Structures are given as structure tokens and as C-alpha cells.
């Protein structure tokens, strides 16, 4: 029997640019051309002012650890517990859920507000996930 697989995102027309970005090694966000609000998750209008004039841009990939849990049980398919499920606040403002790599999955290693930088984890030819690691320096 095949190993249970991690949940795989299926892009929609509104999110396609995001997943093409991660495949190309870029974290892409959207900014409103009218009010400059930066937002996530993707949609073709501004959730702050409702303008449909919005632009996609490459984010810095830098942020900090806003909050997390270390999940023990039940574990999601494709995950070996304990593993941290983190929410990262990006320097551009939006927050996103992710995982923390290159770090022990412990409360001691995972300090709130620690600086993080994006990395990319290829799941298959179609999907690359944005994950984060402790920032260097």
C-alpha cells in the first residue's frame, strides 16, 4: 500500500499565479493599485477597498513567527509527529500558514517573533510549497 500523502493544493484561476511563483522560487503577493493594501490569500480584487486593479509582485520572503502549535496527534497524512504548524507574518504585512524547516520542532527552538525566511519544498511537478526556515544572521 502506498504511503498516505500530504494534502496537495489544487490551484484555481485566482491562485494560479501564486503556485506558479513557488514553482519558480518566488513568493508572490498582491498589492492594490488604488490603496496599496497588500493581501493574501490571492484574489483578483482588493479586500480592503474592492478595487479590481491589483498587481502581483515578488515578496521579500522575510517575516517572523507569529504563532504555532506543535502537533502530536492526530497527525495529518504524510506528516511524522511532532511537527510544528506555524503562522508566519510576512514583512509586507499578510500572514500565512506554513511549516518551519531546519529547526528542531520544539518550544525551545521555536520562539515567537524569531525571524524567518522563505524556502521552497517541491511536492511534485505541479506543486511547490512555501515553507520557512530561521533567518541567517
Amino acid at each position, binding site marked *: 500500500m502506498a504511503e498516505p500523502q500530504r494534502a496537495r493544493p489544487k490551484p484555481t484561476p485566482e491562485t494560479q499565479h501564486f503556485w506558479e511563483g513557488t514553482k519558480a522560487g518566488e513568493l508572490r503577493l498582491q498589492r492594490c493599485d488604488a490603496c496599496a493594501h497588500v493581501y493574501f490569500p490571492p484574489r483578483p480584487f482588493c479586500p480592503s477597498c474592492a478595487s479590481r486593479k491589483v498587481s502581483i509582485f515578488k515578496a521579500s520572503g522575510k517575516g517572523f513567527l*507569529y504563532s504555532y502549535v506543535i502537533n502530536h496527534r492526530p497527525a495529518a497524512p504524510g506528516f511524522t509527529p511532532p511537527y510544528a504548524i506555524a503562522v508566519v507574518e510576512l514583512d509586507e504585512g499578510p500572514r500565512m500558514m506554513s511549516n518551519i524547516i531546519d529547526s528542531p520542532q520544539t518550544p525551545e527552538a521555536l520562539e515567537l517573533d524569531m525571524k524567518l525566511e522563505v524556502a521552497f519544498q517541491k511536492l511534485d511537478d505541479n506543486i511547490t510549497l512555501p515553507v520557512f526556515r530561521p533567518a541567517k544572521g
Partner: protein
Amino acid sequence: MRRNQVAVVGAAETTELGVIPNMSQLQLHADAALNAIADAELKLSDIDGFATAVETPQQVCHYLGITPTWVDGTSVGGCSFMLHVRHAAAAIEAGLCKTVLITHAESGKSMIGKLPRSIPADSLQGQFEAPFGVYGPPSMFPIPVLRFMKTYGITHEQLASVAVVQREWAAKNPRAMMKDPITVADVLNSRMIAYPFRLLQCCLVTDGGGALILTSADRAKDFPRKPVYIMGTGESVETPMVSQMETFNSSRAFKVAGPLAFKEAGIAHKDVDHLMIYDAFAHLPLFGLGDLGFMPYEETGKFIADGNTRPGGKLPLNTNGGGLSYMHSGMYGMYALQESVRQMRGIAPAQVAKAKISVCHGVGGMFAASGTIVFTNER
């Protein structure tokens, strides 16, 4: 909405609570409904308004043999029933129906006839949360806790005390699932589920249901039970994605729903004799006390740890034992409402003496939704 124009005249839970392997989820709805009908001394044919969540109104209405002129299938998670009460009160006041039945049931433990809950891979949750290992409420609901603790200086011991205090209430309740006393050390030594939360800080998983019957306050005086009036109501939604909440220092949905209900009821915090805050996990009473404006967030942990919400304390909270110790079939809001109604009728197992105003605050779909009802037994 005008206060005290609509009242609860029937209220009941399923005959059994806990593990009910001999009943499907749909039959649990019927069991609760029939008990509430009997409580109100009505016939099913008297019901002309119906509301439920997860199961569809058409499913439950047909099963029960009800032909309604008003239905509400609002399904926003465990607080759906608070929203149903609010909507039903408005519908009765508007003359759309006279007698509303609200049912909840869930075969949460035995999983018989339970509808599957799945997250489509092309939904926003399926794309931007599920791939990172969230898997059910224990891995999602506590995600804001560490930030909340850091912002307000809340300790692990204080969060553990929520479970300890609620077990004290449960010990007084013969129908509570878990009644043995526990200590803060017991909580902090229980099995890790999703750090920082351990087993005893997570809700139970049980089978059960409940039902309410509402009618106009004018008609309510002719019913056999003491009417429990709807004094104030509030509701809101924020986001189904816990990662996308405006902040982890509060719940926007709580901060909208709670104050709306207080304002409508025309009450101040000191007027509240009895309080229910939906406790799927141990942090929710702290969010609730802060977001509903009972005290600054910084004081919420100490307030509970110091015993202010325990039996004999100045603000009796979650007096049935809560989702942590009484029961939690998956959508606990109905059981919180049932306890508020029992307290207002004066028949709760752990009755708060002379209680006249009860606030019942619900949460749904992690922090996605919220509903608040203020009840009173005086018109």
C-alpha cells in the same frame, strides 16, 4: 430587535448523552426534538418554523413529519444554534411563523449516519492550510494561543486551571461525562495533543443532541414551563481560515457578536448572573472574557485561576462542566444554550441561586463565527 418579545418554551437534550451506539445522527435529532416537544407539551403539528445545522432542514423536517412556513439552515459551526435563536426571534416577531423548533444532533463519537467533513483541495483552506499539516480542530483551534499568551502574559498554569475549574462544575452534574476532580498538575501532565495544549485542555468527543422551542412572549405565558426570554442577541463571522484572523489577540467575531447582544439587552457586565462561553479548547473562555468586555485580556487567566468562575465564585462560568467535561458532540453550542435555559428555569444540577440573567456565547468553525444570546427569566 426588541428585548423579551420571544421566549424559549421547550428545551431538552437527547435522552442519553455520551456514547450512543444504537442511534444514527438523524435519529438523535428526532430524539432531542421529541423530548423538547414533550417538555413544551406541544404536538409536532404545532411547529411551523424549523432550524438546524449540518443536517439540512428538509432532511430533519421530513423525518419528523413537520411542514414549516419558515426554515433556517444556517450552518456556521458549533454556534449555529445561537444564530438560529437570533433568526427565529426575528422571524417570530415579523410574523413569519409562531412556534420554532431548533435541533442539533451529532454522532460525534459513534459516527453513525454522520455526514463526512472534508476540505476540497481547491478551496482556500485546501490550498493554504491543509498542506501544512492541520488535521481537525486540535491542530487548528489552538494555533492563536501562544501569541495570545505572549501578548497578555498568560501562563500555562492559568490555561490549565480552566479545565480544573470546569471539572468542579461537572462533578455536580450527573449527566457530565467526566466528573473526577483534576489538578493543574494533572492537566499539565496529560498527554500532549498539540503544544501548548494537552488532552485535558481539549474537548470531549461524544454523541448527543438538543432541541429548543421558541414562541412569542405573549403566548409563552400559557406554556407549562417557566418562559426564558430572549433579551439580547448578536452574531458575526470572520474567516474559516484560522491563519487569516485579523489578530490572534482577540476574535473579531466575538467582539462584534458579544457587544451587540449586551447592547440589545440593555445590560452591563455586572448584571450577568451566569455565563456560558463555548469551550471547545481551554483558551476560549479567556478570549470570551476579554472580547465580551468583562475584563482586560491580561486579567482573564488570573481571574479563572483565582477561582472567580468556580462554584461559589462571583462569575459562574460553564456550569454544566462545558465542552471540556460535560459533553462535546462536535457542535457544542446547543448544550451551552440548554444550560443557560436550565439556569434561567432554576432547574440546573449546579443551580446558581437567584440567577436572572444568563449570557450564552458561542464560537463556530474554529474562530470563523460567533453568536451570543442574553437570556432572562424576568420580563
